[in-house]
């Protein structure tokens, strides 16, 4: 139904529904990228076909329970996309120009960059996890998993 395409407000005037539609698409994208990486399967959605914007915030008078603040979703989508790129570069069967250790190194740099760019609210600063946002913990766990999967080939040598 073309969820990956953006729909102009003239066609879909309800901004809340438009944002919901967009976020449902990005959830499907995240599932595709995250789970294909975890299960070792190729992903289904190509980045080049996506013409829709990332989730955004709606004016303050809209229901925040329906459309919560978007920074968490944007961070998660970024990690999902990065994960599939990294898994492709490390475990991909296509001939690679650089050595494995170089690729792991570059993946590590990309991951660190993603982490450094996280908004303040989604960072875990101390060991008191109970005081942190559960979503921040979730992102951290996903980050750790990708880190593990990425470093595994070097450990096995």
């Amino acid at each position, binding site marked *: *139904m073309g*969820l990956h395409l953006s729909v102009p407000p003239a066609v879909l005037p309800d901004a*809340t529904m438009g944002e*919901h*539609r967009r*976020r*449902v698409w*990005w*959830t*499907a994208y*995240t*599932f595709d990228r995250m*789970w294909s990486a*975890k*299960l*070792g399967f190729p992903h289904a959605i190509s980045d080049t076909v996506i013409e829709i914007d990332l*989730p955004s915030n709606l004016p303050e008078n809209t*229901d925040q*329970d*329906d*459309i*919560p603040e978007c920074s968490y*979703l944007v961070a*998660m989508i970024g990690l999902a996309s990065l994960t599939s790129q990294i*898994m492709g570069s*490390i*475990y991909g*069967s296509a*001939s*690679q120009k650089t050595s*494995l250790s170089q690729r792991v190194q570059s993946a590590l740099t990309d991951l660190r960059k993603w982490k450094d760019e996280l908004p303040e609210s989604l960072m875990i600063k101390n060991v008191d996890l109970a005081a942190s946002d*559960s*979503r921040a913990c*979730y992102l951290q766990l996903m980050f750790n998993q990708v880190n593990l*999967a990425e470093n*595994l*080939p070097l450990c*096995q040598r």
Partner: protein
Amino acid sequence: MSVPLAPILVAESSDSAFATRLRQVVSNTQQNHFPRVDYVSDEHIQSLADADCPWPSPGRARFLVDTTLKRMGRCYHILMRSTVLKELEDHIQSPSATGFSVKSKLWAVLAIGELYATRTFSAFPGLQYFAKATKMLHITPERPTLVAIEIRLLLVSLQLFQARTSKY
């Protein structure tokens, strides 16, 4: 790169090995590794889908829907809170007026709620709700709708949970 040097990702089998290691670490008793073959059979899910499944009491249904929205909804945007709550209330008021797809969506939401809310279990919690929700997959909708996509996303996450839970 020569084949023996190419890293191979063995995600599922390493997961079950990880599950064993985790059980060994958290448990005081001896834990052996065992292959996870304890999956729910297709026939069982099929029979649950065809059997009558009583709708939970309004209080329980509200609790389960709220649990799904608060737990899963916090991490993944699949549902609009106000829409689901309204659909649930409408269904409680007049069950016969609820359409097939909305009913399937509510079944899937209840299944996820049950999964989060159940503390101890022997079988997979909410399996009968899951089975009911999968009836939606028996038909290919004539027209594409967002509800159909929402249901598929809910069901696919349930199936992942199901596969993961059976490892522990």
